[in-house]
């Protein structure tokens, strides 16, 4: 390959080495650094110097092989040997930097923050999914006419998910295919859900958001739906992972906090407001949770109704105080900062 020529000639012609470095490693590293910064922002990677981390990841993948190859020592490594070397290198890297939670143990990260509206018909589910940190579900009443799946799924995964949901949840689907529509959002492949949903703590309006809308689904829609989502979002949906998926679903279902309309409509709205102002980013650290004044304004609710809703959400363990704005125990203080309890 061309880098071999450069190795051979760079001493005599330094401009060659520099050209290769500029066009190759330097730009490649910049791309990897950008990816790692994002992974750190999203809590998928420990905070550290992304430049060094990027360099180490690449060097580890060559550990013990590159020089022998360069100097033509021993046989050319087989594909299996290269793969084994890379797995070892990446394991080392992940042990130092990783925060990925392997399936299915990421279920332990599914906090009690699912909010289910079971009373309205037609039933519309609006779900927001955050990788690794939590899965949040916001169900809001509305009158959508079709099922829409938007996500950065590959087309194959989306189609598996769509068929599974159709078969499991929507009996009327067969009779009414127009109920069902899939959009594969054209989202940059390197982006994760969270960065699509929230950008600098704000709902990312110019991206398609993960939205599953169900019309006239059954009362227990949420249960298999959760399972499917977890399975689909946690890795490939496979037959052998189904028992694990069911365990996760059972655990999650036990933790569900159910909000019902009309009586909890204000609470749902407040929660939605919290989602919009990017409360989920709190878990990823770095940003202060929104103040009560901000939340109140974002909810558009009258102050008294909003306070009632806030107390309800706190009492059910959905929201908690991140920081008191003034005197402790004064829930109404506009400077209080609120977050979703995880």
């Amino acid at each position, binding site marked *: 390959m061309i880098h071999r*020529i450069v190795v051979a000639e760079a001493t005599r012609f330094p401009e060659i080495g520099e050209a290769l470095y500029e066009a190759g490693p330097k730009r490649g590293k910049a*791309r990897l650094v950008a990816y790692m910064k994002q992974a750190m922002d999203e809590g998928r990677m420990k905070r550290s110097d992304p430049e060094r981390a990027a360099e180490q990841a690449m060097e580890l993948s060559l550990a013990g092989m590159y020089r022998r190859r360069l100097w033509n020592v021993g046989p050319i490594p087989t594909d299996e040997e290269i793969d084994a070397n890379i797995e070892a290198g990446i394991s080392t890297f992940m042990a130092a930097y990783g925060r*990925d939670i392997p399936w299915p143990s990421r279920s332990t990260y599914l906090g009690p923050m699912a909010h289910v509206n079971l009373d309205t018909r037609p039933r519309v589910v609006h779900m927001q999914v955050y990788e690794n940190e939590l899965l949040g579900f916001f169900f809001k009443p509305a009158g959508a006419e079709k099922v829409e799946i938007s996500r950065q799924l590959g087309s194959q995964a989306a189609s598996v998910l769509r068929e599974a949901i159709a078969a499991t949840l929507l009996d009327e689907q067969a009779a009414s295919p127009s109920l069902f529509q899939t959009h594969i959002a054209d989202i940059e492949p390197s982006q994760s859900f969270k960065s699509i949903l929230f950008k600098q703590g704000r709902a990312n309006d110019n991206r398609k958001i993960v939205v599953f809308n169900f019309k006239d689904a059954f009362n227990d829609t949420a249960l298999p739906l959760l399972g499917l989502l977890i399975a689909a979002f946690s890795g490939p949906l496979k037959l052998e992972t189904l028992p694990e998926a069911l365990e996760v679903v059972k655990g999650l279902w036990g933790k569900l906090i159910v909000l019902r309309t009309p009586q909890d409509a204000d609470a749902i709205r407040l929660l939605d407001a919290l989602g919009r102002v990017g409360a989920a980013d709190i878990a990823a650290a770095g940003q202060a949770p929104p103040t009560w004044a901000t939340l109140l304004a974002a909810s558009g609710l009258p102050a008294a109704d909003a306070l009632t809703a806030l107390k309800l959400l706190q009492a059910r363990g959905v929201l908690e105080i991140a920081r008191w704005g003034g005197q402790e125990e004064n829930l109404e203080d506009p400077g209080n900062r609120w977050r979703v309890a995880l």
Partner: protein
Amino acid sequence: MNVVMPRAQRDLRREAILSIALQVFMEEGYAAASMSTIAARLGGSKGTLYNYFRSKAELFVAVIQSQCDIHQNQIFDIPDQDLRRFLSQLAGRFARLMMS
């Protein structure tokens, strides 16, 4: 007389030069490879070649840049997934490139 080639045609010609030059550099190394050899393989005159690249060094740098572009786009063309799988794939492609 100076004939101005359409841009698309010029780009195609440039690609062809880069591809031949890569072969020659790989076969002969940088020092031994000559513009004459490359021009001969191209079936054109050395003068034409110099219209595109003013020197061997400039040509070699262009070859490097085009190779890097190609390889980088291949290496980074990975669907979104968790960090470990992303890095494994990235490292796999990178290592194979470096071992080749």
